[in-house]
Every structure is written in structure tokens, then in C-alpha cells.
């Protein structure tokens, strides 16, 4: 027994490393924590709740997983007022209306054989009613993800923006991977989808939902990881400039700002520096391009005084 356990441990370690590598080849650089979360979610069949500051790659993670597993990505963007008609399914009303019209015309054919009210009702009952059937069902993201033949990656983005009611309504889907449609019955997929929920923490997520998920917190990456990300996303940047700009951003995150620069903004900055044909950072250049990193005037003003000292410090290294 001991041996079996040991070998399973080794396997899991290997597999997690494999996940990390294949994500890397997809252009998503991640640490072992993220890879472990993916591995656990696959093996436990649990959704992952991803939290972290904006722009650290929460949504990208789902995209990378989808392309790695070669499954389709179905995305549901949450917002206030999102309801089941937009998230789950909707009836095709136009067609249903037409159907009732057709039915009215055909009514005579159906009950022509029967005599008297009672037998008419009888034959009407026997008539196969397709008013509420899958033919008239318009699947929305959640239903699509569950009924996908090959399994899918479902991304429920920014769950914190939705209402409490919607959260409660997700519970059934997330724990049993099934959807109840009152008129038809329960729809259950063959393959469980991999589910990601992302949250920016504008509102506390309910305990019931949290309990059903693995919780992954993605913080801002450290300098080494961020450099790797830049290598993979903006390969044209010189080595020297790359380490300079990454350590500049890292320093910038130490400041007390309204919105800290995110990874995606570092990438944007790197891209624009390449475009400007920059070889090395200096204070003036930083000042001119700072609006790519910082999105609030008050932040830019606050950082302005620090630019000189930060660039000097970077140069020292």
C-alpha cells in the first residue's frame, strides 16, 4: 500500500509539471500553484474559483486550459441583472408562436376522427406535444457547456458582478453539473466541464458557492515569473531592457497607488517600448510612457516624484 501511494505521489508531481510545461507552450507562464489547482480540479471534479487583482491572467488561465485540453471555451460574462434566460436557456418564442398557429390549422385533422368533446380531448392528449421540447430550446452558455459532447471549459467571468440570486442558482450546476428545466426535466452532460469562476472581490462571494470550489489566489507575479511572461509574450525585447522594465514595474507596485499596474499592462508597456525602439530606460522616457502603466491621473502624479529614484536604483543593479 505504501508503495502504491508513493508512486501515485510521483505521478501527480510529474503530471503537475507536465501541466506547467504545456501551459508554457501555450504561452501561459504559471507557477506550480496554478498547475496544482488545475490538476486537483481535474481529479476532484471541482470548479476553481480564481481570485486576484485585475490583470493577473485570471481569464487567460481559462483560455489556456481550453486550448491545452483542446476543448471549446464557453464564456459567461456576469453583470448586474444577469438572469437565467441569458445564462441558461431561453425558449424560441417566435417559433413557438408559429407552432401554435400551425397547430390551430391542424387542429381539425387531429380531432376530426373523434366524436364528442370527451374523445376530442382524449385525442388531443394523445397528440405528441412538442411545444416545450428541445427543438424550441435556445441553449445559453451554461446549458451549452453542460451538454457539450466533448466536454468544455466553462468560464464564468467576474461572478462578483452578478446578483446573489444568480449565485444561488449556480449552486446546482456547480455541484452536480446538471440543469433542471421544469418543462423537460434534468439535463446532465456526459462529460463534466472544467469550470472556472473569476472574481475581483468587489463583493464577498457566498460561503455556499465557495465551499463547492477550490480556491486559487493569483497574486502579482514576482520579478522572475514576470520576466518569463514578457519573454513569452513580447519576444522582441532585449534582455537588458526586459529586466529593467520588469523591475521598474515591480518597484511601482510597492507604491501606494489607486490601481497597481497589472501584468497585462506590463506587456503593453513592453510592446510599446519595442515599438519606440528603446534600448534602455531613462526617467524622461518613463515619464512619457507612464500612462500605459497607470490609468489614473492621481496615480501618475504620485508616481512622478518616484520615477527618478526608481530608475536610478534599477540602473545600479
Amino acid at each position, binding site marked *: *500500500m*505504501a508503495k502504491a*501511494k*508513493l508512486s*501515485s*505521489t*510521483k505521478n*501527480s*508531481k510529474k503530471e*503537475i509539471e507536465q501541466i506547467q510545461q504545456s501551459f508554457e507552450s501555450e504561452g501561459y507562464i504559471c507557477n*506550480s*500553484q496554478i498547475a*496544482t*489547482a488545475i*490538476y*486537483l480540479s481535474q*481529479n*476532484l471534479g*471541482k470548479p476553481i*474559483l480564481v*481570485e486576484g487583482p485585475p490583470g493577473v491572467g485570471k481569464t487567460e488561465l481559462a483560455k489556456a486550459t481550453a486550448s491545452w485540453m483542446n476543448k471549446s471555451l464557453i464564456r459567461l460574462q456576469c453583470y448586474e*441583472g444577469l438572469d437565467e*434566460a441569458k445564462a441558461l436557456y*431561453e*425558449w424560441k*418564442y417566435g417559433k*413557438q*408562436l408559429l407552432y*401554435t*398557429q400551425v397547430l*390551430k390549422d391542424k387542429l381539425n385533422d387531429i380531432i376530426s376522427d373523434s366524436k364528442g368533446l370527451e374523445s376530442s380531448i382524449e385525442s388531443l392528449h394523445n397528440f405528441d406535444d412538442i*411545444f416545450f421540447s428541445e427543438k424550441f430550446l435556445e441553449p445559453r452558455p451554461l446549458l451549452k457547456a453542460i451538454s457539450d459532447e466533448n466536454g468544455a471549459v466553462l468560464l464564468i467571468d467576474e461572478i462578483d458582478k452578478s*446578483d*446573489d440570486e444568480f449565485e444561488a442558482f449556480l449552486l446546482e450546476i456547480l455541484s452536480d453539473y446538471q440543469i433542471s428545466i421544469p418543462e423537460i426535466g434534468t439535463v446532465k452532460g456526459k462529460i463534466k466541464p472544467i469550470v472556472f469562476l473569476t472574481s475581483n*472581490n468587489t463583493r*464577498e462571494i457566498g*460561503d455556499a458557492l*465557495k*465551499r*463547492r*470550489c*477550490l*480556491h*486559487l*489566489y493569483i497574486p502579482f507575479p514576482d520579478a522572475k515569473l514576470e520576466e518569463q511572461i514578457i519573454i513569452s509574450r513580447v519576444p522582441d525585447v532585449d534582455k537588458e531592457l526586459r529586466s529593467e522594465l520588469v523591475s521598474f514595474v515591480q518597484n511601482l507596485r510597492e507604491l501606494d497607488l489607486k490601481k497597481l499596474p497589472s501584468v497585462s499592462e506590463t506587456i503593453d508597456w513592453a510592446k510599446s517600448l519595442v515599438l519606440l525602439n528603446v534600448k534602455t530606460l531613462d526617467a524622461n522616457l518613463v515619464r512619457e510612457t507612464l500612462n500605459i502603466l497607470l490609468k489614473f491621473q492621481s496615480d501618475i502624479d504620485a508616481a512622478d516624484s518616484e520615477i527618478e529614484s526608481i530608475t536610478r536604483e534599477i540602473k545600479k543593479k
Partner: protein
Amino acid sequence: MAEFLRDFIKVLRASDVRISTAEAIDAMRASTIIGLEDKAMLKVSLSQSLAKSLREKEIFDECYNNFFKEDYMNLSSKKDYENVDTSLENESFDERNNDLEELYNSSDKNSLKTSMALASQEVGLRNIRLFTQTGMFTRKILEFMGLEKLNNDIFQASRDGDNNREEELKEIREKIRLEIRDYVEHQLKLRTSESGRQLREEALSQVRLSQIDKSDFVLMSNIVRKMAKRLIALHSRRKRKANRGMLDVRSTIRVNQEYDGLLFKTLWKRKKVDRPKVITLCDVSGSVANYARFFLMFLYSLTEVLPNIRSFAFSNDAGEVTDLFDTKDIETASAETLLLHGGGSTDYGNSISDLEGFIENDIDRKTTLIILGDGRSNYSDPRTDIMKSLHEKSKRIIFLNPEPKSLWGTGDSEMNRYAPYCHKAKSCSSLADLEKVVDDLLRYAF
């Protein structure tokens, strides 16, 4: 492994991390998949399945490091890989560890620690709650590890007149005892640092507001905030209010099925309306000095969780403190409010007429007005006429008075004259009271 995980979860729970049984099962499954070999990976996977917010993750890290500081890991992996069932464990325990002297002198310090951990498991050290239990548990563990034999040896040595050996053995006994004591104290700290706080919080919420010490202020503000959050979460379910505008095609068609698809009965889209308006008026005069801080604290917490709230403070005339509450932290906000408006002699009549001036345009049938104060107006005109008009204009007026009902109307208290114009006038002198009242308020008012 189940044992160690259960124990660890207990530690986490004691530290204020909420863990459900379902999550414990998840953690168990995760650790079976990951295995115990790679500790970094185990930590990551446990953290993902147990700690569900950033705050909880921080606590988790701390607990994890404390918990595995000892050789707990050694112990549990040994148990898992070598001897699975308990009878085996006891056997190996007996044969290995009965000789304390040998154990102490052996070069491998780990074996002493392991046997200590095993012994503490045996005597149920995980149930330790109070520091007074330290001595008892130390003794129990020592006995379990073979104190008797060591004592016999010492006795033997002294009978043989071998003073050196006697001293040597006594020294060993003392050193082991100290080590066990440290271990027990560490465990105690691990398990009670947070649960002690819990006990204290519970006790505090029962104490009368005026009796609370300044040193408890921070703790208290945490309780108040927690309470306010909980109440709001509980009652923030939005009321649906019909807003006739758009036709709701979906439900209309469904409802009209029974009329053969003819659009006979129309249904309209409903829009959620949930903007309770709250206006608070807080007495910060000398007579309620003891309560004022807590009233303000409570108002502050309420401001944090309710979107539409305007706050006023008064002693002889009223002033708006909404901005102060919005921009400053709780300490500064309440201190500044007390500085600006506090201390003076109370004049309810004047303050209420001030308030009316401020909120004239804002008060409507959706507004709830909360007044916190003792209703003692220094024999000035209580201006019940304004109270009456406010009563007519607003949805609800709630008067919370820290004095017990028996004192209302005595001396300069105008409480009995205000009460008829309040939808609710209640005495509330402890946090528990306050909670009850607010709970009530939220249930029916919004």
C-alpha cells in the same frame, strides 16, 4: 493521515477559518491524490481546498507553518507508511520508548520528539484549552513516556548510594520535563490564540456599553463591524418591485399557454428596486458620553455597508458627518465627530429643527430615520411638532435609547413625549440589544 488532517483542521477552525465538512473531505481527497511526499505541493493543495479568501489564506499559512514546525509530519508519515493500525503503533511505542534515559541520550533528537508527539496524541493534548492545564498535560505525557521507570532508576541509584548517577538521572528528568512543557505550551498557543478571542468577543457583546474599557475598543469595533455586515448580508435580499414598462415576452407566452397562445394576459418586466434611504441622528452630548463612541462606531459600520445613508451628530445643534464617515477611518471619524459636535449640553428641540432643515428635500416615504440618544433635553422645548411632521413624512422613525425604559420620562427626559411619534422606540444598552434592534429594523424596514 486522516488523524493529522483532522487535527490540523481543528487548529484552523480555532483560528477563525470557517471549514465545512465538505471542505474537509475535499482536503482529504486532495491530499490523497497529491501524497505526503512533496510538502510544498501538499501545502498548496490544502490551502486551495480549505482557505477560501485572501485573509483565510494568510491565516492558513501561519497555522501551517506553526503546525508543522514540530516533527508532526515525520510522525504522520511514519504512521502511514510503517504501521497503519493503532495496535501496531502502541506496540512499537512500548518497545521503543519506555526507557527515557536511553531516549534522551540517544543521538537522534528526533526520536524523542516523535515519542513526545505520540504520547501527546495518546493523552489527548489536542483538547487543551486553558493554560492551567499545562501542568497536567506535561505530567501525563511524561508518565506516558516512561516516567515511572526513570523514577525507579533514581530511587535505585539513591539506595545504592550512587550520588553521581542519581544527580545525572534527575537532571535528565528535569530537562525532558522542560522540553515537554515547552511543547505543551506551544500546542496551547497554537490552539487557543484565536479561540480565546472568540470567547472574549462573545462576552463583550453582552456587557453594557458604558462599562466597556477603552482597551477593548479595537476589538469592539471589529465586533460591531462584523455584526453590521452579517445583518446586512442577511437582509440585503432585494425586494422586487413592479415597474411597468417593457412587456415580458417570455413569461407572457408561458402564462398564456392556457389561452391557446393568445396574448390574453400580459405580464410586465419587473425591475429590482433596492435603495433604502437611511438617515441617522446621533446624540454625542455629555450625558451619553459613555455611549457616544459606540453609537458612532455602529453608525460608521452601517455607513460602510449601506449605500444611501446620511449621518448627523448633535449636542446642542446638529451637523452632518456623512463626508467624515465616508472619507476617514473609524477612529479619526468618531474622534473628529466628538470634537466637532460633542461635549456640549443637549438640546433636542434645536437639533431636531436643524436636522429638519438639512433633510427637508431628502426625506420621503422611503426614508428610515434612526435616532440614537437618551432623550434628555435639559428642560428645553422638545419640539414634538417637528417630530410629528418628520413622522408623517418618513417611512419609519426608530429611536434607540441606552436608558432602561423605567427611566424614560424621569427628570429632563423627554422620551415619553417623543415615543408616540416613533414607529419604534426601544431601550438598547448592550451590543446584543443593538443587534436585536437592527435585525428587527432591517427585516421590516427595507
